[in-house]
């Protein structure tokens, strides 16, 4: 199939036009295939590294066939059908498994013996052989009675716990697995279920001549972003709901953003349903840089939520693929601690880069949805568009100012900025813009309260000056000092903004009965409702009272700053350096009745404090 390995090698090349397409949010199917080709080569390099490492470990595969047998079987299946083998090797969980197996070689410890990890490769080869109708006799790992055949399904042996090895034979597509006295025959149509077989389900959605074909993966142990997980078979009713949502999301994407649908059709391979998290109020999703084409998504409330999640994750997938081919920033330094408008914690440059790309996609999705809808749906889309656009603006400026971008990275970021300029020229209603500004400024203020603190010497000097009637000191440096990760913050006001727009009747009830809100939503307050309802002066009074009762309430400090701005009485220090005002206030509160926080902010601002951070 290939030239003599001693001959000159060919290296992947990325056309500039592809980079520009990707930074413009899209990516022609040909560009996505280029990323897929890079992913394939990456997996081959890592697989070769893994097998060479295993060959130096006599018991790497335990009772399973040896490394030499693996090379031989791979070659045999490839000779019969290289495309089938490639399809199985490109199954997203194979990428997650491969990365984990390589980490194991590099020294990562796991509770289970190494062959249980490495042996997934035997299952990959068996699945490819079965699909390619290649005769093969091998053995594969079984965990808690479940033997996975990647891209096909799972054989189930009742009554088995822990790890075991099943013998497997496949001939002309007829595959049988044996464990002890038990036998499982893989159905001729492996997508269906039998008493001892779960087929890997696939959903195919077609709209306007475009097709999305994805596995609905609830069984593969490597379908998660990190450690292996047990199967979580979906009930038929849930599968039906997912299928309906996928069809609906695909119709929306094809109708509103057809070029993007073309791109996604070429690159999206699987959806892993995530369990609903009772701590979360909305749909959540995830993806892994090692699993090109896979999105993990919680069951969506409606097809629009799924469409947004698919765009979000596909943005990550595309950028992850490009980053495997070429560096866009210095990858060796992860010391940056940057503000990302969608996160509570400081993020490294790589995380901010990913987030910006994802949220640019989200912004454009909502922009197009706003243009394609009317009435209630239009109002929702306008807010979401305005909010995501505002978030990406600040994050893009941070990204563009980084000295750690490579030349290619700078070109990519310039492309993102051009994309955002287009989005910026789209008008939205004043109400949507106002709500978006409020939500974004609010988040940033709380982030600063949670993650920054002024130097203690400056705090002491400011407190002394206040007590003795002197002028405020010039500012010192802000230090990064994130609160502990377990101090979760529920961004209640973001939820309220969305509720006001999405469910106005419910919001009106909360306006009429704030007690009903505080009973239902932890950490919510009457001041929050007043702010979101467009009564900022009332909110100011509420937040001042909340601060007096609980000076460490970050949300109240941020709410005060946002409310004052919304009321036309902005105290910028409460938005730019709320952590400084908060720190001085608390220092004063240790020894005396604390001052009015607005007066304190005015006094501190009179020093014309420069923004240092």
């Amino acid at each position, binding site marked *: 199939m290939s030239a003599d390995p001693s001959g000159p090698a*060919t290296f992947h090349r990325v056309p500039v036009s592809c980079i520009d397409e990707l930074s413009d949010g899209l990516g022609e199917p040909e560009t996505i295939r280029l990323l897929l080709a890079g992913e394939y080569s990456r997996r081959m390099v890592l697989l070769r590294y893994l097998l060479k490492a295993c060959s130096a470990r006599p018991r790497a595969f335990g009772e399973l066939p040896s490394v030499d047998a693996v090379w031989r079987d791979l070659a045999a299946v490839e000779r019969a059908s290289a495309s089938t083998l490639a399809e199985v090797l490109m199954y997203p969980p194979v990428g997650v498994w491969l990365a984990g197996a390589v980490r194991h070689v590099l020294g990562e410890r796991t509770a289970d013996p190494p062959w249980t990890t490495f042996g997934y490769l035997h299952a990959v080869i068996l699945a490819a052989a079965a699909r390619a109708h290649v005769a093969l006799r091998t053995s594969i790992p079984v965990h808690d009675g479940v033997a996975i055949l990647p891209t096909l399904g799972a054989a189930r042996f009742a009554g088995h716990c822990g790890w075991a090895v099943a013998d497997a034979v496949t001939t002309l597509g007829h595959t049988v697995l044996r464990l002890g006295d038990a036998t499982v025959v893989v159905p001729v149509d492996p997508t269906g279920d039998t008493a001892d077989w779960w087929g890997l389900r696939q959903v195919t959605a077609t709209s306007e001549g475009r097709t999305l074909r994805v596995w609905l993966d609830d069984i593969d142990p490597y379908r998660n972003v990190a450690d292996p997980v047990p199967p979580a078979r979906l009930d038929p009713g849930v599968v039906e709901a997912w299928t309906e949502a996928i069809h609906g999301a695909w119709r929306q994407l094809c109708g509103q953003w057809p070029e993007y649908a073309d791109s996604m059709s070429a690159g999206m391979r699987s959806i892993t349903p995530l369990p609903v998290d009772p701590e979360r109020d909305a749909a959540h999703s995830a993806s892994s840089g090692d699993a090109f084409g896979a999105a993990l998504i919680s069951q969506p409330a409606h097809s629009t939520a799924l469409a947004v999640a698919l765009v979000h994750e596909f943005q990550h997938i595309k950028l992850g693929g490009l980053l495997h081919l070429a560096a866009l920033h210095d990858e060796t330094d992860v010391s940056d601690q940057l503000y990302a408008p969608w996160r509570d914690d400081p993020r490294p440059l790589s995380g901010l880069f990913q987030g910006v790309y994802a949220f640019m996609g989200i912004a454009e999705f909502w922009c197009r949805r706003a243009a394609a809808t009317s009435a209630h749906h239009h109002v929702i889309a306008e807010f979401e568009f305005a909010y995501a656009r505002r978030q990406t603006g600040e994050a893009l400026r941070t990204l563009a100012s980084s000295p750690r971008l490579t030349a290619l990275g700078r070109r990519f970021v310039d492309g993102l900025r051009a994309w955002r300029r287009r989005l910026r020229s789209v008008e939205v209603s004043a109400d949507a813009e106002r709500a978006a500004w409020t939500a974004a400024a609010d988040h940033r203020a709380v982030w600063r309260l949670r993650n920054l603190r002024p130097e203690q010497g400056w705090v002491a000097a400011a407190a002394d000056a206040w007590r003795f009637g002197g002028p405020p000191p010039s500012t010192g440096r802000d230090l990064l000092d994130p609160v502990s990760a377990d101090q979760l913050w529920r961004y209640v006001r973001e939820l309220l903004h969305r509720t006001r727009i999405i469910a106005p009747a419910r919001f009106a009830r909360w306006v009429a009965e704030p007690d009903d809100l505080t009973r239902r939503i932890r950490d919510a307050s009457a001041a929050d409702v007043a702010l979101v309802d467009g009564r900022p002066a009332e909110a100011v009074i509420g937040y001042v009272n909340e601060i007096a009762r609980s000076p460490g309430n970050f949300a109240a400090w941020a709410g005060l700053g946002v409310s004052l701005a919304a009321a036309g009485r902005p105290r910028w220090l409460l938005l730019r350096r709320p952590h400084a005002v908060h720190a001085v206030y608390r220092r004063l509160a240790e020894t005396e009745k604390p001052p009015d926080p607005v007066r304190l902010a005015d006094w501190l601002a009179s020093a014309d404090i420069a923004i240092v951070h």
Partner: protein
Amino acid sequence: MVGDLDYRPEFPVDRRRIVDRPRERKPNVDHSAEDVRTNLVDLTETSFEDLRGYDDAIFEPSLIRFLRQVERPRANVGSGQPDRID
């Protein structure tokens, strides 16, 4: 780190629909550079027999990068709160 905090409730911009707008040409694109060479060997047409026979050195530049990526796996996932994920 400081973004625009201007409170601008009204934005006097033209109403334009993005779906109707042509993509603008990138101002910084060097059109003389047609493609970027990577350090990853193209193995899409390489058989497993040949893959095994290659000299290690040819994979080294990309392998070093990949191992670094694998050791710090990239997961795009939230940290416990809704809608705020990378």
